[in-house]
């Protein structure tokens, strides 16, 4: 088989939904605006290193029109979702995500999120969203102080966010983590608030879905792996769904997150 065809066979869009056929209708559509294809933006900071993985997952696996957005851009343009990717923005100087949150693009992301636009922060992206106070709580060094890179099991606790709606109930997700600072900390007051408002999106668990101390890779409060904001449109998570979109490399459970974003064709602009 010629190389190109093999590549196309490998990267065929997820069979359930073909993004290239999904048109986004703005609320303004009534006033003659032409419907356009759904589009995602992936932020790029100096030191981001999962930006291309996120791009690959969105564009090649799901067929979503995807664009990179450099952190100095004051405007994110017309997009239907934003991915804040993982990596080591600004070398993690001072604190992970502390400097990136002041990049010009983050003001635009905050406005987008304020209007209900879906934003997914992955790993360092989660840390940036915490520093930007778009999500509550804070991140600390892993309890054991080692960088951890391995597949973990996750249970989804909130299927109402734009990134979790398509995750089957009761499915134990297998998605890798790779971080040195993923020890999410919430004080008891905040933890209660998160629980009451169903803002805990993912928790680390064992292969049977039991939330145990042994299945917690970093010592995070209440085994928290991912949370969302009160409104549910901003999600942050330490595990890397963009690294789990092909069975050939271990798991394709990450696809459910991107598929969720697709199935909920809502535009914030």
């Amino acid at each position, binding site marked *: 088989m010629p190389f190109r065809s093999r590549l196309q066979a490998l990267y065929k869009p997820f069979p359930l939904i073909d993004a290239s056929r999904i048109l986004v209708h703005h609320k303004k559509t009534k006033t003659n605006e032409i419907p356009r294809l759904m589009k995602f933006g992936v932020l790029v900071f100096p030191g981001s290193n999962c930006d291309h993985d996120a791009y690959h997952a969105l564009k090649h696996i799901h067929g979503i029109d995807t664009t990179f957005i450099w952190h100095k851009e004051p405007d994110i343009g017309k997009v239907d979702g934003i991915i804040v990717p993982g990596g080591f923005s600004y070398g993690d100087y001072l604190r992970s995500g502390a400097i990136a949150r002041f990049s010009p693009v983050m003001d635009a992301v905050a406005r987008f999120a304020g209007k209900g636009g879906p934003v997914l922060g992955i790993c360092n992206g989660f840390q940036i969203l915490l520093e930007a106070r778009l999500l509550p709580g804070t991140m*600390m060094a892993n309890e054991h102080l080692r960088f951890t890179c391995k597949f973990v099991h996750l249970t989804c606790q909130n299927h109402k966010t734009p990134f979790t709606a398509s995750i089957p109930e009761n499915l134990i997700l297998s998605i890798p983590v790779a971080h040195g600072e993923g*020890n999410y900390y919430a004080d008891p007051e905040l933890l209660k608030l998160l629980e009451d408002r169903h803002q805990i999106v993912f928790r680390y668990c064992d292969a049977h879905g039991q939330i145990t101390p042994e299945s917690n890779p970093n010592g995070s409060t209440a085994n928290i792996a991912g949370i969302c904001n009160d409104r549910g449109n901003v999600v942050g998570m330490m595990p890397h769904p963009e690294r789990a979109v092909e069975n050939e490399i271990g798991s394709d459970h990450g696809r459910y997150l991107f598929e969720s974003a697709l199935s909920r064709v809502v535009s914030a602009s």
Partner: protein
Amino acid sequence: MQVDIVITLRESILDPKGKASHHALENLGFRDISGVRIGKFIQLDIDTDDAARARNIATEACEKLLANTVMEDFEIRIPEKSVS
């Protein structure tokens, strides 16, 4: 004017680096050390001779960027040598 800033994790927050260092010290035989907290030291050079103004600028810098006030406390010190 030189301004020194010491940033430490809040008392209520577990400090994994401090805890690991404490264990190591215990293993080395330092029995009298009952706790270790690890933080950051930042030195600012501020273009002013007014100590109060320097303190205000340093406080603002800490609150906006240098410290994460959710989990960190900061202390601003103006060394005697910089007050002339």
